[in-house]
C-alpha cells in the first residue's frame, strides 16, 4: 500500500469517486484554478473540467443551497467551505433545508460538506474553530471526523455515497503531518463505527480528529499504564456500542476533544456513559477540551487554549490514581 498524507488521502478519495461516478462534482471557493486554499483539489480542474470543479462566488449559503437543489435532482455535490468557520454563513441552508429535507418530504440530499477545521497554527478566532457540536443539534445531518489517512479516504467515499447530508471535518493540522498507508482504489469506511486506535485495559481515552494523535502520544508511555484509545471517527451516528464496550473493559474514561467544552461532543459521550455504564465506572468521567473561549491568535494564547499532550497526561495520571 502506498504511503500518503492525510491531505493526499482526501484528494485521492475525492478523485476516485469523481472518476467512478459522473454525478459527483466539487464546488467551493478557489477550488478550481487555485486547487483549493489547502490544495485538496489541486489538479482537479485539469482532469474534470470547470463544470465539475466549480469555483463558486464567495457565498456559503449559495454553495450549500445550490448543492441541495442539484442533489435532489440526482447529483452528488461535494462542497468545500474554505475554512470550517465559514459554515456559519451557510448554516441556514445546511440545518434548515438540507438536514430536514428527508424528514419533511422523503427526499434524499446526498451532499458532502467538507470543513477544514481546527487550530494550532495561529489562525485566530475565525480560522481555527471546531464547530462539530453545532451539527449534533440538527437531526438529519451525519458528522464524521477522521484522524488517519486511511480513514480520511474511506470516510470521504462513504460520505459521498451516503444518501444524507454529511459534514466531513478534516483537521487542518493533520493535512501534512499525518501520513499512513492507504489502500489503492475505491473503498469505504462505514459511517457510525469507531476504531480502537490502541488496545488497553486500565483507562480509555475517547477522542476523534486531531486529538487522537495527542491521546496516543500522551499515553504511549504513562508509567506502564495500559491505555486504550478509541477514535470515534463518526460523531453522528455515534458508535455507542464501541464506547460502552471500552468503558466496561477499562472502567476509567477521559473524553478528549479540541472543541470547546460546554454541550460539546464530550458532554454527550459523558452523559451516555453516566446513564448506561454507571455501575462499570471506577472513577469520574473526565473531560479534556478547550475552555469556553474563542480561539486566540498569538501562539502562547492559543497553546493555553488547545489541549496539549501534557494536559492529557495529567488528566490520565490523576484518573489512574483515583
Amino acid at each position, binding site marked *: 500500500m502506498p504511503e500518503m498524507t492525510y491531505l493526499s488521502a482526501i484528494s485521492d478519495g475525492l478523485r476516485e469517486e469523481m472518476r467512478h461516478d459522473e454525478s459527483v462534482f466539487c464546488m467551493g471557493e478557489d477550488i478550481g484554478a487555485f486547487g483549493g486554499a489547502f490544495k485538496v483539489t489541486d489538479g482537479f480542474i485539469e482532469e474534470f473540467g470547470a463544470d465539475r470543479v466549480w469555483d463558486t462566488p464567495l457565498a456559503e449559503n*449559495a454553495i450549500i443551497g445550490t448543492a441541495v*437543489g*442539484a442533489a435532489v435532482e440526482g447529483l452528488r455535490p461535494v462542497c468545500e467551505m474554505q475554512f470550517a468557520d465559514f459554515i456559519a454563513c451557510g448554516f441556514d*441552508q445546511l440545518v434548515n433545508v438540507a438536514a430536514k429535507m428527508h*424528514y419533511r418530504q422523503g427526499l*434524499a440530499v446526498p451532499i458532502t460538506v467538507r470543513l477544514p477545521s481546527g487550530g494550532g497554527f495561529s489562525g485566530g478566532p475565525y480560522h481555527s474553530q471546531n464547530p462539530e457540536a453545532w451539527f449534533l443539534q440538527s437531526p438529519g445531518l451525519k458528522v464524521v471526523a477522521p484522524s488517519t489517512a486511511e480513514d480520511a479516504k474511506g470516510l470521504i467515499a462513504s460520505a459521498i455515497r451516503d444518501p*444524507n447530508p454529511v459534514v466531513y471535518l478534516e483537521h487542518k493540522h493533520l493535512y501534512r503531518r499525518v501520513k499512513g498507508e492507504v489502500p489503492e482504489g475505491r473503498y469505504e469506511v462505514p459511517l457510525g463505527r469507531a476504531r480502537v486506535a490502541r488496545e488497553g485495559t486500565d483507562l480509555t481515552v475517547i477522542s476523534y480528529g486531531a486529538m487522537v494523535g495527542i491521546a496516543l502520544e500522551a499515553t504511549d508511555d504513562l508509567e506502564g499504564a495500559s491505555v486504550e484509545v478509541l477514535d470515534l471517527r463518526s460523531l453522528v451516528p455515534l458508535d455507542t456500542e464501541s464506547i460502552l464496550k471500552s468503558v466496561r473493559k477499562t472502567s476509567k474514561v477521559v473524553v478528549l476533544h479540541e472543541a470547546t467544552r460546554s454541550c460539546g461532543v464530550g458532554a454527550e459521550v459523558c452523559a451516555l456513559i453516566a446513564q448506561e455504564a454507571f455501575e462499570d465506572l471506577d472513577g469520574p468521567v473526565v473531560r479534556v477540551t478547550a475552555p469556553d473561549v474563542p480561539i486566540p491568535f498569538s501562539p502562547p494564547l492559543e497553546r493555553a487554549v488547545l489541549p496539549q499532550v501534557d494536559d492529557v497526561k495529567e488528566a490520565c495520571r490523576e484518573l489512574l490514581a483515583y
Partner: protein
Amino acid sequence: MATTTAKPAAIGDGGPKAVLTQEDRRALLRYMLLMRATEERALALYRQGKVPGSYYDGRGQEAISVGSAFVLGPRDRTCILHRDLGAHLIRGVRPGRVLAQMMGRAGGVTGGKEGNMHFGDTELGCVGMVSMLPDMALVTCGLALSFQMRKEPRVAMTWFGEGSTANGQWHEAMNVAGVRKLPAVFVLENNQFAYSTPNDREFAVDPVKRAEVYGFPGVKVDGNDVEAVFYAAAEACERARSGGGPTLIECETMRMHGHGAHDDMRYVPKELFEVWAERDPIDRYEKKLADDGIDIEEIHASVKDELERETEWALSQEMPDPSAALQGVFATSDPKLGDGNAPWSRWKEASHA
C-alpha cells in the same frame, strides 16, 4: 373542441410562439377557481378548529401561480411558496391531499410532518418550501444547475414575495443564477406587504430593476392578469430552455387576506384594499372569458363538485400514528423527484407528436 387562439405572443427571436387555446384558457380559470375554493374550504376548516396552528393563503394572488406554473413541462421542477396553491394543483396535487395536509392528517402530502403550504409533492417534481425566505431560490439554482450540467432543456421555477428580496440569500441566488446563466425562472410576487411592512419600507428601488445588475432580464407584469403572467413566464421558460439564462418576473399584486388567519390587516389602508378588490384576478378573467362565449357556470359547477368530493376524502383521512414522529430523519435510499402534470396544450401536442 375549440382551438381559437388568444393573443399569440412571440417568444425570443424567431422562437416558437406561446399560444393559449380556448381549452387552455378554460383551464386557467378553473385552476384559479379551484385554488380559491380549496383555500376558502381550508379557512372554514381552520375556523372549525380542524386545522392546527395558523392558516396562510394566497387570496388575490391566484393568477400568479396559475399563470406561471401552467407554462411548465412535465420534467420541469418547482419550489412553490405558501401563496401559490395554484402551482401545486396544476402539477397534479389533489385538493383533498392539500386539505388533509392542512389538518395534519396521515393522508396529507407530508403525512403530518409539516403543516400549511409547507410541502412539495416530490413525485410531481416539487421541492417543498421552508419557512426561511427565500431559501428555495438557491435550491432552485441547484435544480437548474443539474439541468445545465446534463445539457437537458429543462427549467426550474420558484416563487417568492417581495419581502424575500431583502434577504442576503436572495442576492446570493440572483448572483449565482446570473454568473452561471442558469435555466431558472424567478417569479417575484409583489403583494405590497411583507407581513405588515409596506413596499416603501422594504426597498429603495423596485426589485425588478435588480435583475439587470445581476446580468439577466427582469420584467414586470400585472400579477392579477393570468394571461399576462402566462406570457411572461412562457418567454422566460423559453429563454431558459434555449440557454439564454434566468429571468426575474415581478408580478404586481395585493395580498387580500392577512399574512395568516390571525392577522386582521389593520395596517392596510382601506382605500388601497378597495382599489385592489376591484382588480380581482378571477372576476376579471371570468368577464373576459364570458365575453368570449365560454360557459363560466359550468366551470364553477365542476369545481364545486370536485371540492365536495375532495373535502369528504380529506375528512375521512386518519390522524398519523405517533410512531411516525420518530421515523424518516435519515434517508436509506435515493428517492428521486418525479415528473409533474403539464396541462398546457403545447405539452399535450408535444406528447402526440
